[in-house]
């Protein structure tokens, strides 16, 4: 019955003027044929299943792209054995991870050791539920979406601690302590750069934040936040903090394999390790999705006459660009030292984010000014702040001639 209804509906759906509606209509059609009390449950289950399937597939693709991309950056072909051009490599990796022995150290706290990967992955999946993927394609339109995102993100710190502590391994604990210190430090610039957007839009709902970025200036430049000076600075601060938050290179100290084996993952193997790995990629997708929503106009098309492309394709296209930038950075930058990492968060990003909030306030109260002047004044303020920061930084890093004590 349901299936037949879908078949009969299909041509009707394809003829819709707005292609964004396809998925929404499809789900409505399916749910419509169910008995009343089940509609809500099935509707939620469909959303959950689609989210898990899409991001699970994206995870597989991302690992492949990462390995191929890193290979190309290092002038290697990357994995190319399993399937044509190595496209089946993620399956091979998954099978390998699944059939590996699941080692639990004898001294480990078994329950906490088992729970840690779940506590990491479940909140990240919750974070997916507030991001608008397309026009009308938002799992839950929460009034306090941004707050929800950061609230569930906070649980990952606890998960990292659980993973590090339960192994009874000094490297695990060291890695967990590093990870927590790093995540707490970088959460502050992350939230502060989000605050500018929330302040300008006047809402914590991600749907409204995207809606506020619709339209175009002079019919060409999209009204995305990144094209405002505070948005650009905020985006840069947000992205740096986001990379640190998702423990990616160059901020991958918690897993620095040359120093502390694998950090909090030292005692994990097999499927639990795979779950951790998946959690980290999911975290990367979630925070990239938030960055797209906050600064890059969410699902809005970059040019006005491209509006006929389904909106979710724009979202995922932007997500792939983010993914590539993450990989590019990983292929380029070496790992930071712990003191550099902390200094960077507290002495560079935090002041920049605070100054950026001030600039956003100025932008807000100069709405009557002519556009370019307003833009230039605000940009100048940020550049001044940056130059001032640079001077103080460079001064502290001045190289002195090296002196040798024993060799003459």
């Amino acid at each position, binding site marked *: 019955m349901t299936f037949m209804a879908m078949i009969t509906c299909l041509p009707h759906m394809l003829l819709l003027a707005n292609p964004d509606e396809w998925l929404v209509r499809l789900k409505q059609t399916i749910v419509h044929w169910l008995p009343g009390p089940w509609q809500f449950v099935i509707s939620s289950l469909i959303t959950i299943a689609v989210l898990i399937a899409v991001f699970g597939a994206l995870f597989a693709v991302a690992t492949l792209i990462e390995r191929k991309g890193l290979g190309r950056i290092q002038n290697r072909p990357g994995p190319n054995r399993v399937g044509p051009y190595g496209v089946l490599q993620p399956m091979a990796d998954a099978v390998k991870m699944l059939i590996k022995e699941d080692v639990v150290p004898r001294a480990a706290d078994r329950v906490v050791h088992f729970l840690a990967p779940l506590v990491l992955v479940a909140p990240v999946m919750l974070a997916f539920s507030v991001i608008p993927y397309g026009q009308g394609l938002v799992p839950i339109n929460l*009034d*306090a979406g941004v707050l929800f995102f*950061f*609230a569930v993100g906070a649980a990952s710190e606890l998960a990292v601690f659980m993973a590090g*502590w339960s192994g009874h391994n000094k490297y695990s*604990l060291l890695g967990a302590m590093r990870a*927590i210190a790093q995540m*707490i430090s970088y959460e502050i610039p992350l939230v502060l750069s989000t605050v500018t957007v929330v302040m300008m839009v006047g809402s914590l709902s991600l749907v409204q934040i995207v809606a506020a970025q619709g339209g175009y200036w002079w019919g060409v430049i999209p009204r995305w936040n990144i094209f405002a000076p505070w948005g650009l600075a905020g985006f840069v601060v947000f992205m740096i903090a986001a990379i640190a938050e998702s423990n990616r290179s160059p901020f991958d100290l918690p897993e620095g394999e040359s120093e502390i084996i694998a950090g909090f993952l030292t005692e994990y193997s097999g499927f639990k390790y795979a779950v951790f790995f998946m959690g980290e990629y999911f975290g990367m997708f979630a925070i990239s999705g938030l960055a797209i929503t906050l600064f890059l106009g969410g699902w809005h098309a970059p040019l006005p006459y491209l509006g006929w492309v389904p909106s979710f394709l724009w979202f995922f296209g932007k997500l792939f660009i983010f993914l590539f930038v993450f990989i590019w950075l990983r292929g380029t930058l070496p790992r930071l030292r712990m003191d550099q990492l902390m200094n960077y968060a507290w002495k560079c990003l935090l002041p920049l984010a605070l100054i950026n909030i001030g600039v956003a306030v100025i932008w807000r109260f100069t709405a009557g000014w002519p556009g370019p002047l307003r833009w230039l004044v605000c940009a100048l303020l940020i550049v001044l702040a940056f130059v001032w920061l640079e001077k103080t930084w460079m001064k502290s890093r001045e190289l002195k001639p090296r002196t040798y004590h024993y060799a003459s």
Partner: protein
Amino acid sequence: MQAAFFIIAALIVIGGLAAMLVRKLVHAVLWLMVTLASLAALFLLLGAQFVGFAQILVYVGAVAILIVFAILLTRNSEWAKAGRLASPSWLVGVGIAGLATGCLIASILASSIPPGVPVPPAASVADIGQKLMTEYVLPLEAVGLLLTAAMIGAVIIAMPEDKRG
């Protein structure tokens, strides 16, 4: 709704009891987190969305990590070994707590609260923001000052004594 309330209430009570009874401090923190997260769920159930998320953000994201750091910084073998967890006068403490709880519950049950359930009051984020910036702006500033003072105080107290001068 009823089932949700009872599950959450059971989690809160079990988490609280376990947090107070277990031997390992880290386990106590994890049980505390169970309680506090369930409490956040109860807030959501009661329609206080913003408070629920703030509860998770502050307690799971900040307080739990603080306590964990404190545990690791004050680690000694004293608690891991078999030893008495409770102070010698624990019976008095539990007695007082039981008495207080008994009085509270007795007075709650004896009180004449109307049993009806009114319409849930709206608490949109915009409303809360509006209130915070107008009516509650003085408490907000005071809390800001208090948190700054607490942060500076915590840093100075926890600093090693030889560096303090």
